[in-house]
């Protein structure tokens, strides 16, 4: 049988069997009724033939379940489009040439982990000389002045420094996402940049393990980068964007 791309279903061991694995905790004591509740709950979520294959007490008031069930829904993959930063990724050398030839000036980039976030490994990977997985960071690019402010920089400080060095772009990293703190932090920064009247003068870029381009745009940033990003991805985007803006 052929896969129908307009009606994709999960695959256990046979096409369209719909099998999925779930695990979760319920805030109730373990017991026959609790396990049945787990089963029925998964049924209510729209799974066919839910089967509780394992249940375990986590001590008073909590119990854990592993359930298999058949997904009833299908998904049409032919209509799915994913927002991505729309750019032709160049090599380091090509970027440096592009800066020299097409921009004709060096560019200033400032970066930081803002507010309470202290996870610098990601921003360091993008900005510092050393880079990441053998991909050199922005600091090593001819024609890019990269200033990495590091961890736990307040939005105010970042905005001030960006203006001070006449940054072309600000690069933000957000790693901690618990209780959507990254949303709050990122929103705050955009508000401050707007209040300072520099929002449109800067290219705003955000990255992190739970960031994607769609989210970035939703929050008012120009671009978003997720896991697996290297300096050349960001740099390619930046030089093109600056080029486009210069022509406008």
């Amino acid at each position: 049988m052929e896969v129908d791309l307009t009606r994709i279903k999960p695959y256990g061991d046979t096409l369209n069997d719909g099998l999925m694995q779930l695990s979760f905790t319920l805030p109730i004591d373990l017991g026959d009724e609790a396990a049945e509740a787990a089963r029925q709950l998964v049924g209510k979520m729209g799974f066919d033939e839910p089967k509780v294959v394992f249940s375990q007490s986590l001590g008073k008031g909590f119990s854990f379940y592993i359930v298999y069930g058949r997904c009833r829904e299908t998904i049409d993959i032919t209509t799915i489009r994913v927002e991505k930063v729309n750019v032709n990724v160049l090599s380091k050398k090509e970027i440096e040439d592009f800066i020299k030839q097409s921009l004709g000036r060096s560019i200033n980039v400032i970066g930081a982990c803002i507010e309470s976030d202290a996870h610098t490994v990601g921003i360091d990977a993008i900005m510092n000389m050393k880079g990441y997985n053998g991909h050199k960071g922005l600091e090593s690019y001819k024609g890019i002045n990269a200033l990495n402010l590091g961890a736990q920089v307040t939005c105010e400080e970042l905005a001030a420094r960006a203006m001070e060095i006449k940054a072309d772009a600000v690069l933000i990293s957000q790693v901690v996402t618990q209780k959507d703190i990254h949303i709050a932090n990122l929103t705050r920064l955009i508000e401050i940049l707007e209040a300072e009247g520099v929002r449109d003068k800067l290219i705003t870029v955000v990255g992190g393990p739970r960031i994607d381009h769609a989210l970035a745009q939703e929050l008012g940033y120009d671009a978003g980068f997720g896991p697996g990003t290297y300096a050349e991805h960001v740099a390619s985007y930046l030089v093109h964007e600056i080029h486009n803006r210069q022509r406008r």
Partner: protein
Amino acid sequence: MSKLGIDPVKVHRARLAAERIANDIQLHIDRRTTTAVERATLRLMGIDGATEVGIPLPNVVVDQVLQDGRLGMGIAFWLANAVIYYQVSPQEAAEQVALGKIELTRVPIQDEGALREEIQKLAQYGLDKICAKKQERDEYIKKLGQGAEPLLYVIVATGNIFEDVKQAQSAVRQGADVVAVIRTTGQSLLDYVPYGATTEGFGGTYATQENFRIMRKGLDEVGEEVGKYIRLTNYCSGLCMPEIAAMGAMERLDFMLNDSMYGVIFRDINMQRTFVDQYFSRMINGFAGIIINTGEDNYLTTADAFAAAHTVTASQFINEQLALKCGLTEEQVALGHAFEINPELENSFVYELAQAALARELFPKSPLKYMPPTKYMTGNIFKGHVQNCLFNMASIMSGQSIHLLGMLTEAIHTPHIADRYLALENAKLVFNAMRGFAEEITFKTDGIIQKRANKVLNDAVIFLEEVADMGLMEAISKGMFADIARSPKGGKGLDGVIFKEPDYYNPFVDAMLGRR
């Protein structure tokens, strides 16, 4: 040097006792043939296909002679006789039998010399085919190379050979070296081999020659893609052991689950039947360069793995000696053992390692087939993944050869495609992270590991000598293996066991054992 400090004299005693056991069983084998052996003979002579109602031609032909009471001559004789007389191909002869147009035992007996010659000619078909397949395998291995030990062995078991291929290919792309197609429940008790491609099985897929071919092709393709030769495995087990061996040899299977006692103990197949069948099937496997995997690991699914450890070791010695009699080399005998001790037992891993290292030392030339935890797996897939991780460690720490991957969903369903991926990932991670670990360590003199290994060996020696004294059939009757008792007259398939007539002849025995 022994890492375990085991006594070579004990090892020698164990082998001697096992040899006595095997010699005794060989006396039984030499005097008998079975319907399955004769059907396999026909298959090796090129007889294939089934009647309109689905009865395979080898069955039709053999049953006719059986009914006439003359199977003791060997089917080769009757077939050759008809082929000469009617001047037809063997397949045509079989078809005529099916149509009721030929009754083999009524065909006038031809000249003895011509018969001998015809029999050899008929046999040459199978022998040539097998040799060609062996060569094909050698060329593939030369061209593509093969995985590093421990080989990663996965099973597919969807019931549908076409889904099986998809899943096997996916597993190979994730790193699998060996793919076994598990048979549907119940096939082992069928006294015939189904015909053609099949898509309906329960807990496994029918073993048919067409299915073998389909999977072989699928694995060759993906093997080219990933750049290594992928081994195909099936079950040479049950009432049709010899036939499956014949089919596997002709379709270039590489491994065969093929035990001397599994069918007796776990499928209640008659033991007189099984001993004869296993001999013939193993002979074919040996000749075809197939590595057999023995099944004593299964004992631990019914008996307690800690208490009954020595019965596994004892059975390994018996399987070895019986296999050597069939022309298999030590390198072709992958002896089974398993990681089945209750993980809640303190130091369970330490005991497992002792057992695994013991098997490695006792059978230095044999590739060992190491089975994952199954009995103590639960619906807790996360815990199961850890149990499998411990198993993977024991394997790399004791230098196992064929590593059957444990599935985190063992207690739930036959593997989903993702289960296999996760299992491969688990094993690859552990093997890579511990690649050189075994070399790094030595075991404490008289520590838990050494003591345990020596105790298991000692118990095995006592056990083997006891079995040798009473005879293997008697021992099985007493439930000495796997806590299961079977009687020599009980079980399925005794009616297919026939005493050989004095002039019985089977051309494959001499040819395959190189006695010509």
